């Protein structure tokens, strides 16, 4: 038993080392693999937000559709704090260079080396904190709502936030409907996955702590959880605020990935993409969400690209056809894997090992079943 655990731990470490090697190899040859790098960076961002949403929806049973709003808050906080003072006159040119915030983290920490990275991480965390603060404020009234009503209220919040950030009066802060750019960002795919990995690890640790058990109790049976001394209001709020914190960090990462922040990017369709990832990966499965965020981004933007290529001469192949095929794939997944790819299980080495070990016997059982029919 103990040996097995040790062996699994060693294998996991080897696996992580392989992933790091692969990522650094990609980075070293970034000119040839720009597509793969972009996909991996984007899926790192989505993985953070999807896992955060899973914490709320899959493990606490609260269905919220405010992800895009909290991501927007994180992205804007990051962008506003990180634009160097010197570039602000250009960035805010639509408002005659007026800007309310004259302090810049980028000036404090520089734009290169470890200190710049530290500054970026601090800005990401501040973005998360702003999102968490807003989550707390709107959580006070809306967390009394249940299921669909909570979803509608949070969706409304996200839309209001988006409109609010495009308001001209706030221009010197948010640059109105214009783009905020010119801030420093992670230049390597590894940094994205390091931050994403740290966020996901913290969420997993939280879920495995006594608080995680309390969340699951609330999800399983609110009445029983309350009777066991678990305060519903408090634990729902903790889950909501934590989830929003990581959505905010994810938003900051997205701003880095896109090298800009603009409110019109954070439409409700972004929330639906995250929701889709959570559902496809399996509600209540962390590894499922991570896996699905990669599969989703890769399918959507990479593997199916050839379908858009009219020059291949295949009938039906033309610009936009990829989206049709992608929609069909999603429908098939939802039809055949009703609980998502992973259901509520987790993918680890033990599970992979079991899958392959029991594969022959399962196949045999299946063919026997067919003969019997």
């Amino acid at each position, binding site marked *: 038993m103990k040996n097995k655990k040790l062996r699994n731990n060693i294998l996991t470490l080897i696996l992580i080392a392989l992933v790091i090697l692969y990522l650094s190899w990609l980075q070293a040859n970034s000119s040839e693999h720009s597509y793969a790098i972009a996909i991996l960076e984007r899926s790192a961002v989505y993985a953070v937000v999807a896992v955060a949403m899973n914490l709320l929806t899959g493990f606490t049973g609260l269905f919220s559709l405010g992800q895009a709003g909290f991501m927007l808050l994180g992205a804007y906080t990051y962008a506003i704090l990180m634009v160097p003072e010197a570039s602000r006159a250009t960035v805010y040119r639509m408002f005659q260079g007026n800007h309310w915030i004259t302090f810049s983290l980028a000036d404090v920490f520089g734009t290169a080396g470890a200190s710049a990275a530290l500054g970026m991480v601090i800005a990401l965390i501040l973005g998360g904190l702003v999102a968490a603060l807003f989550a707390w404020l709107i959580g006070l009234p809306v967390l009394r709502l249940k299921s669909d009503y909570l979803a509608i209220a949070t969706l409304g919040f996200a839309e209001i936030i988006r409109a609010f950030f495009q308001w001209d009066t706030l221009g010197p802060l948010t640059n109105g409907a214009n783009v905020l750019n010119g801030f420093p960002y992670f230049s390597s795919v590894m940094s994205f996955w390091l931050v994403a990995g740290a966020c996901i690890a*913290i969420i997993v*640790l*939280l879920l495995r*702590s*006594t*608080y995680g*058990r*309390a969340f*699951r*109790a609330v*999800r*399983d*049976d609110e*009445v*029983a*959880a*309350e*009777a*066991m*001394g*678990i*305060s*519903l*209001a408090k634990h729902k709020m*903790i889950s909501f605020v*934590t989830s929003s914190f990581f959505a905010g960090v994810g938003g900051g990462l997205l701003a880095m990935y896109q090298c800009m922040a603009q409110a019109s990017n954070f439409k409700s369709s972004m929330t639906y993409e995250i929701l889709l990832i959570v559902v496809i990966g399996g509600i*209540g499965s962390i590894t499922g969400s991570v896996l699905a965020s990669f599969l989703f981004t890769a399918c959507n933007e990479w593997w199916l690209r050839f379908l858009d290529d009219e020059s291949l001469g295949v009938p039906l192949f033309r610009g936009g056809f990829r989206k049709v095929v992608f929609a069909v794939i999603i429908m098939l997944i939802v039809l055949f894997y009703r609980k998502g790819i992973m259901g*509520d299980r987790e993918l680890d080495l033990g599970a992979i090992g079991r899958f392959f070990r029991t594969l022959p016997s399962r196949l045999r059982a299946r063919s026997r079943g067919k003969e019997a029919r």
Partner: protein
Amino acid sequence: MMAENVLHVENVTMQFGGVIAVNNLTMDIGRGEIVALIGPNGAGKTTAFNCITGVYEPTNGLVSYCGGVIARNHPRGKMKKLYSGENADKYLDAPAGEKAVVSHTPDYITSLGIARTFQNIRLFKSMTVFENVLTASHLRRTSNLFSATFRLNAKEERQMREDALALLKTVGLDGVRDDPATSLPYGMQRRLEIARALSTQPKLLLLDEPAAGMNPQETNELTAFIREIREQFGLTVFLIEHHMNLVMDISDRIYVIDFGRQIASGAPAEVQNNPRVIEAYLGVDNNG
């Protein structure tokens, strides 16, 4: 009145719209007693439980636990006009230094030391037997979100796990501790629900029909089990039950209610021969 009073229920009335579910109920439960609350279906037994555990806010009356008021209310808001019970003015004003309306959520009341089980078993379905018991010790935590996430509470966590395991051994469920809670046979699920309630370290245990759906042998086992845990954990037990054998066997005292109103109380033998009780159960009148 007993010297050491664990639970005191005074003139509690619960009215839903025009329906009075619990009517002017007054009860006292002393330390270490096993007291039963019986009555025909729909008599308001579970509603009385819900008023004690904070699920409902009673419309009128007072509940105190170990001397401290845990619920006090008088007809307010739209109940002011609708209220058709008694003692409407008795709880309008609080004694000096206390609030006129005291109302707590169930989790707070549990943290004071009142735990309960449910009429239709409510286990945490996605969890194992062990996790069910472990989760109920969450309210005893001293760790906050941060220290729990980063495992700064390792000692406390280990203690929680040891306690949960010890509790499972006591109730005889350690053999199935890693099984999904809902895969257990019915009798064991009941037992697990009691174990989970014990994990909150209560002084007063409320059991809502613990023997529902059990055969005579399981019921006998349950009777012995309730006695055993009362001794071992120094509990006071208050239960609702329909199995008369169990009630007569185990209870020190019995309260009988019908249509929300108390119709008899006393030792099992007295209650058994009380004509009003027989009438309520057999429906001599047109109460059927």
